[in-house]
């Protein structure tokens, strides 16, 4: 009996380690360096910009408390909550209320421009710098929304997110291949896809430590927490099997996401689950912005193609 190893069969027919490596290089190049339609990135840009704009407005509602020298966290104590000096912030330079508001205002303007797609490359960079500055200055006030917005903005900086559905497109026109499929758009979308898989994998793996997830009762822990609650789900107390089913389905979905989001057969199911889970968290636990941001990130897995004239012929 002959044992077949992974090195024995290769689509290239070389049947060797070199052939195997060549297959991987081929797949790597196909995965990253294929041109993709920038339309999904443009949709992600609009949604991310809108959520970020709203987040900026809320930061500004209590800017002194979040970023001021006498706020929740004194500038000299930020190192206790994050990794200084690497976690820089432009708010470290703000030592009076006016400076805090000006810097917060720059964040907001950049986020609005990003949404509209005006001066998009610059708006994306300033939006990312603003988000990083806010999150690094106010670590006592951050949560998953900020992590997700950071992940989204990095892809928007990398890719040509303003080449479609933008004022830039209206003003500059669609000449010189602007808005066409590109490797840059593909790299940006792929980065977001892989990053999202990392997020779900570690979130799911972390839950595997928890007894309540194995027992199928974790959903109850979230539903009965009055500090989070915006929708009364305590009626679920009378339906323990429903709580079990939803908890276990959520756990399976999160743990398996990194593998089963890629095959076309399972992708629609996993995307539908993402919408259900994140909308559920948004509605029931009062974190709608976080839920929407995660749904937006999942858009990176949607197939999209800009219609051409022949489509309408």
């Amino acid at each position, binding site marked *: 009996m002959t044992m077949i190893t992974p090195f024995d069969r290769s689509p290239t027919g070389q049947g060797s380690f070199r052939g195997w490596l060549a297959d991987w290089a081929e797949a790597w190049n196909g995965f990253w*360096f294929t041109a993709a339609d920038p339309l999904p990135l443009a949709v992600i840009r609009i949604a991310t910009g809108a959520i970020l704009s709203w987040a900026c407005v809320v930061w500004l509602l209590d800017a002194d408390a979040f970023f001021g020298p006498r706020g929740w966290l004194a500038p000299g104590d930020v190192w206790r909550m994050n990794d200084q000096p690497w976690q820089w912030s432009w708010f470290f330079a703000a030592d009076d209320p006016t400076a805090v508001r000006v810097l917060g205002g720059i964040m907001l303007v950049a986020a609005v421009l990003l949404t509209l797609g005006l001066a998009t490359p610059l708006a994306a960079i300033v939006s990312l710098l603003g988000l990083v500055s806010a999150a690094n200055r106010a670590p006592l006030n951050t949560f998953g929304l900020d992590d997700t917005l950071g992940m989204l903005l990095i892809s928007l900086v990398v890719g040509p997110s303003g080449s479609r559905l933008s004022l830039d497109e209206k003003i500059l026109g669609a000449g010189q291949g602007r808005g066409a499929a590109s490797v840059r758009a593909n790299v940006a979308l792929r980065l977001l896809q892989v990053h999202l898989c990392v997020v779900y994998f570690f979130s799911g793996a972390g839950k595997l430590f928890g*007894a*309540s997830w194995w027992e199928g009762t974790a959903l109850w822990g979230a539903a009965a927490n009055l500090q989070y609650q915006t929708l009364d789900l305590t009626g679920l107390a009378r339906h323990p099997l429903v709580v079990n089913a939803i908890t276990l389905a959520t756990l399976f979905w999160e743990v398996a996401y990194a593998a089963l989001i*890629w095959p076309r057969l399972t992708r629609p199911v996993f995307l539908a689950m993402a919408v259900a889970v994140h909308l559920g968290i948004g509605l029931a636990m009062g974190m*709608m912005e976080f839920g929407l941001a995660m749904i937006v990130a999942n858009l990176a897995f949607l197939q999209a193609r800009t219609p051409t004239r022949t489509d309408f012929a």
Partner: protein
Amino acid sequence: MRPPPADHSEFSPRQPVPRPVRLLLSLVILVYLTGVIIAPLSGPPPASELSQLMLQPFRPLLGALYLGHGYRFFAPNPGPGHSLRWTITMPDGSTKAGSTPDAKTDWPRLLYHRRFMVPEKLAALVPPVDAPPEIRARARGDWLPLVKGVAGNLLRTHGGDRITLELIEHYLPGPDEVAEGRSGPDMITPLGTFARGGSSGRFGGSLPQAEGATPRR
């Protein structure tokens, strides 16, 4: 073993990217994604010594791009919620009591959530009052400076002179208790009393309650 399918068919045909550019971009992508993976691998605990070691060269990248996250949402178990209960003595001697967050006044909801994160993050640092004294003493150096800042912000916001703070861990009732209309007592951890320290805007703190307190459940 073959790499996962690249699903090329969703995309336009491959564009020619010069080999040196491809190699350089591949290196950048690999470094970036390694950083993205190393961050949750190295924390929160439990984490291996190896991952901690591997994290070190990535700290500038992760810090600069705000990528150093653990992504353990509601893990390992969804826990109880926390809030800060405060009593402020105003300059005229009157007192004002409240809590952070406050669902009635902290609106919009995102503002509530940003304020809600303050007690949630402090709760990760403050041991419960029934913890061994040596653990409480060791932890105090971590949370006391943060609580002083929180006290200062609340005094500034409300214009008070003195504030007493308590961390409340809200009881998380089980399904049976909710079905029977029962609940349990919250756990209260005194954090101290803090006074405005003159015109400099600095705040002095003392911990009379924290030192002598017993758990109230």
